[in-house]
């Protein structure tokens, strides 16, 4: 950890354990997830079976990856709406331009990451160097990307190579592949957040002026955050294509709001500097589990939304107020 940003984080590490646990959005969202799982297990007989778990993973991974990417931008008090566009674009590219076999999958991964990086770089440039507000220019890039997705594929279809659709949603040595992918992303994040870039990201989210004064290359940190976010959206789009085994130019739309809901439930604050990728990914899993729980509770489907809305609010409340509780604990 660089000396510059050290003082900004010290506070977190000196808290007593109980306070730290309560204060961590990630821990709270995990607790909420487990609570929901308990409810689900109570009213659905095979809720805890391996297939159920594996289904949920492959269904939830695209949202989890997209939320992970979005978190990077939210951490520095930005909004990245381009997530919907990049997912759609990566999704249709996978369904139209991927070849079969290992090599095909690898090239496809490179392609979607490349597209994501490109869009992320445009966003990053416009925000960090041209000084535009993030919500405005990512709205524009989102629209442009969804237009591009329509050009690639003008209706749902295409075909995802079987290697991608089977292996990326299957298991490797009895471990679900989506879980492996999620762990790889989390591992990468664990490494990156200890670099100057990761530390700078939190520092500038917490207080941009102070970060600038402390010598953090604010523009570069922002630029790279958008790039990394774009790359993650790209992978999310590919995973979506794998899970649905076709391409759909309109696939991104439903992700736009879900991504932000997952981030908020995951304990990342929209005022910057607090939270992390793990919380957002569990937040994504929570949202998906919520659908299942409401299904098994048999709530009349017209009114499912009411339950969904209330639980989203409840989750955020529990996380936020346990954090406040933690802050009031004696040191």
């Amino acid at each position, binding site marked *: 950890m660089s000396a510059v940003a050290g003082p900004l984080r010290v506070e977190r590490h000196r808290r007593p354990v109980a306070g730290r646990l309560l204060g961590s959005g990630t821990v709270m969202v995990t607790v909420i997830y487990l609570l929901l799982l308990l409810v689900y297990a109570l009213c659905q007989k095979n809720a805890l079976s391996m297939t159920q778990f594996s289904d949920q993973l492959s269904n939830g991974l695209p949202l989890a990856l997209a939320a992970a990417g979005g978190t990077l931008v939210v951490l520095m008090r930005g909004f990245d709406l381009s997530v919907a566009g990049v997912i759609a674009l990566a999704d249709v590219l996978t369904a139209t331009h991927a070849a079969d076999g290992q090599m095909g999958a690898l090239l496809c991964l490179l392609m979607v990451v490349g597209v994501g990086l490109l869009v992320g770089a445009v966003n990053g440039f416009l925000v960090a160097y041209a000084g535009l507000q993030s919500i405005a220019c990512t709205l524009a890039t989102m629209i442009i990307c969804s*237009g591009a997705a329509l050009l690639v594929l003008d209706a749902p279809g295409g075909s995802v190579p079987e290697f991608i659709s089977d292996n990326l949603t299957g298991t490797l040595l009895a471990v679900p592949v989506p879980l492996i992918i999620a762990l790889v992303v989390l591992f990468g994040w664990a490494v990156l957040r200890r670099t100057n870039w990761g530390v700078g990201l939190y520092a500038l989210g917490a207080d941009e*002026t102070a970060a600038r004064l402390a010598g953090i290359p604010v523009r570069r940190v922002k630029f790279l955050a958008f790039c990394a976010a774009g790359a993650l959206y790209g992978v999310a789009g590919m995973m979506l294509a794998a899970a649905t085994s076709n391409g759909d130019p309109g696939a991104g739309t439903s992700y736009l709001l879900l991504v*932000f809901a997952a981030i908020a439930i995951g304990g990342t604050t929209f005022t910057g500097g607090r939270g992390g990728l793990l919380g957002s990914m569990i937040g994504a899993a929570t949202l998906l589990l919520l659908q299942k729980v409401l299904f098994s509770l048999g709530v009349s489907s017209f009114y499912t939304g009411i339950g969904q809305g209330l639980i989203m609010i409840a989750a*955020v409340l529990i996380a936020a107020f346990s954090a406040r509780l933690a802050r009031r604990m004696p040191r």
Partner: protein
Amino acid sequence: MKEALMSGPAPHDTRTTGRSLGPEAITPLVLFGLTILLVIASRWISPNLGGFHQVAAIIVLSSFLMVVAFGQQMVVLIGGLDLSVPSLLTLGGILTFGWSTASGWSLIWILLAVLVVNGVIGALSGAGIAWLRIPPFIMTLAMGIIVYSAALGITAGTPRGHPSAALASLFTGRILGLPPIIYLMILFVIAGTALQSYTPFGRKLYALGTSPVAAHVAGLPVGWLTVATYALSAAVAGVAGFLLVGYAGGATLVMGQSYLLPSIAAVVVGGTSILGGRGTYISAVAASLLLTTFSTIISSVQILEGWRTIIYGCVILIAIAALREDLPLWLNRSLQRPSRPPPQAANAQSAQ
């Protein structure tokens, strides 16, 4: 939060007086100019474009967006975002449509009732945001889902009611050759601008948007201001639904869906910053007109929908790039006017 004390710019009155050509005055001028240019240029595509009737039609068609954008802009002004707009617009529409039959209420009572119902729902969102500290994004998203789901359940998918002839005459009638809605919109824009710029409430919102902490320290009722803003946003979304029923003669559960992103686009293209405290309603109005004009013209161009979408995105991008904060400053300088002291926002502006 204490960080905001340091990072946020000091509260300052961002509104400019009419004397100098400040950014707040230039933005709408540039947007109106772009719109007029577009209308003129569109004659190349079809000789029927750019006529008087087309301009009148565009104003009528953009009126719903202008109304919605008013609420969205106020919310963005105080650093929030209202995602419940589509659901509340739908709710306003369903209530208007349903009440038109039930008792033959006069329009003004229906409008008032819609304002109250929507206002209460918006106030609930505002209360959650102000006092329970729920992020605006989540609070309004959840509220939107809840309202939509309740509307779906109660109507069982098919809103019932009768079209109101009086309401329809706002669009079909003619006063001095123009539909009455155009005059109403002019009044609405004037009232909205006045509320924002010339009332204590409006000034307090700018202060709150610029720095919530400073506003709190200065003794402003931050919580109540937030509640009022979200209530207002929900209420005007209801008004847009009310007007749409007049226009279309019916209500559907999806009627609000196509207004979320356009309302955000109109607000940000109009130069309002999500970091709060900057932007004017008249700019959002100009942006609504620009976006509607553009979409009218682009559908007459025979290209693939993908290209149309891409061009639409590029127009938004160009508009926000052209309206960068320092562009008006630069224009000011080149116009050789006595320049104002450079705003301290140089740092804060890139804070997103």
